[in-house]
């Protein structure tokens, strides 16, 4: 028997309610799937994460296909305020520290400071995959061909952290980094018209205001840890 118009209306309402009940992750995955159609997801209640698995095809700017990576992306329940973990399941990338991948295939997409700052603002799944994941694997293919990365890389461990402060926040050296971190982590608030902690004599608002705002989002603990570790290298 054909459903009545009332039944149909109820059906449509039910679909709308179900769609509304989708989590931000589920809604965003629908969009991401258009760009990355060979990825699928399941919710893993044991680890409380969304587990995205599948193939990521890499093409260049001319649309020429290069290779396919089998990947897994673990997305914490707190999406979009989280840092997903990305692992390569295929073994195209050599499992070597120089390739920025752990023996288990976990990919170090970026310095953790950048990832943390990004997560504080809230990530968008499609942008995360295209800007962090896709580019990482394209970069690995580039290195396989040219034996170097196209856009540089961070040094490992603490040296990479120092590099981050110097390159991203344009601090001259370790002493400038320490001075900056000391000021930010101290209880005194840095006013916009105060002299910039970097020591160049300009007002903060004309100098490192944006960097200070970003660094504050990384959390007190992270900054204190960096301050301690970098200070120890100066002694």
């Amino acid at each position, binding site marked *: 028997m*054909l*459903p009545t118009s009332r039944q*149909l209306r109820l059906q449509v309402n039910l679909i709308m309610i179900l769609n509304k009940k989708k989590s931000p992750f589920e809604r965003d995955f629908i969009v991401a799937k*258009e*760009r*990355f*159609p*060979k990825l699928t997801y399941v919710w893993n209640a044991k680890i409380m994460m969304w587990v995205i698995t599948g193939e990521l*095809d*890499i*093409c*260049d*700017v*001319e*649309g*020429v*296909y*290069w290779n*396919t990576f089998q990947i897994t992306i673990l997305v914490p329940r707190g999406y979009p305020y989280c840092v997903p973990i990305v692992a390569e399941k295929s073994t195209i990338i050599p499992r070597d*520290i120089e390739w*920025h991948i*752990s023996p288990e295939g*976990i*990919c*170090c*997409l*970026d*310095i*953790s400071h950048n990832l943390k700052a990004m997560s504080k603002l809230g990530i968008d799944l499609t942008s995360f995959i*295209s*800007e*962090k994941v*896709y*580019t*990482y694997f*394209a*970069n690995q*293919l*580039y290195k396989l*061909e*040219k034996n170097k*990365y*196209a*856009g*540089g*890389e*961070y040094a*490992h*461990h603490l040296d*990479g952290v120092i590099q981050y402060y110097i390159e991203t926040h344009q601090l001259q050296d370790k002493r400038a980094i320490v001075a900056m971190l000391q000021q930010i982590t101290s209880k005194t608030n840095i006013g916009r018209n105060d002299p910039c902690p970097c020591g160049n004599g300009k007002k903060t608002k004309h100098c490192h205001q944006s960097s200070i705002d970003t660094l504050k989002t990384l959390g007190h603990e992270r900054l204190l840890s960096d301050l301690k570790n970098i200070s120890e290298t100066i002694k």
Partner: protein
Amino acid sequence: MHIFDDYVKPIRAAIAADPKSGKLYETLSFSERSLQKGFDFKVFNQQVPEKRLLPNLADFANELGLTPNFEQGLGAHPDFSHLKHSETLEDHYIVSMFVDIKGSTNLFKKYTPRTVWIVTNTIQRAAIHTCLIFGGYVHRLQGDGLFVYFGGKNMKPDPAVKRSLQFASVFSYFVKEDLKNIFSEQGIENIYTRIGVDLGYDRDVIWGMAGIGEISEVTTCSLHTSLASKMQSYAMSNGIVIGDNIKKESPELTEFYIPVCHRTQSENDRYIFQIPEERFNYTQYDFNWLSFLKRQDFIATDFLGNLQLKHKAVVMSNRNVANLAPIAAASKPYYDFE
């Protein structure tokens, strides 16, 4: 995807050379002039050979590891051709597909019949060539369109269904994306496809000779062949509608099938055929062919979301690592594991 680029070229050339299009004859290339002025069938055949795939499509077939069988005749599926002039009937499953190409009549508004002939024949040859790659049998040419079968005695129904959907998707992409660009540039209404596909099982399909003497063909008598034709008329522009049996035979593709009534918002469109006394309700579904195509092993989606053909079988001569750099340079990896 570029697999039909070589088929697009003669269409562009014919349109550019059309006297009604306003391009100065003196500016035309030799082949353009030949196509237009002399309506030289030989030139057309050189540009779009009957029994040879054009290079990009040949690469595509190579990528899939498939070889087209050009030795087919209309109205004579090779597995059933022995039924011609016989009094035997056979029961055997078949996938029936109607590919309708709509909008070509609009071409007469702007182009001479010769141009229209080249355009429609090129599209039809592209359809036939693609169909043959996927192992289809062209049963009949219908105007600009085709009536094709998939499957036969050496193939089970499920791979035949998969092949038919792959063909329909690839051809729809050609018409929707590649041809759209040409016609939108020319400011004329688009040409589009409407495709209906259905599967009849052994119990549903009778093969035999229809007609008399030489006015005959070996064809199917099946509800599902009729329904494929009927479903084609329910498809939207560049759409594919499939029947319940296709869905049953491809359970892994369920996510790509949505009952037609969801689109039309009319419950009357849910079933394409009903026998109330037998409680037989046969559902028709829109097939999300673009999503299906994106998931195929031979397709990659590039950084901008465009579909690209994977070339695994051959190393691409035009592969240049410098073209990876703009994407790769945005990444700056780190390492912080113990």
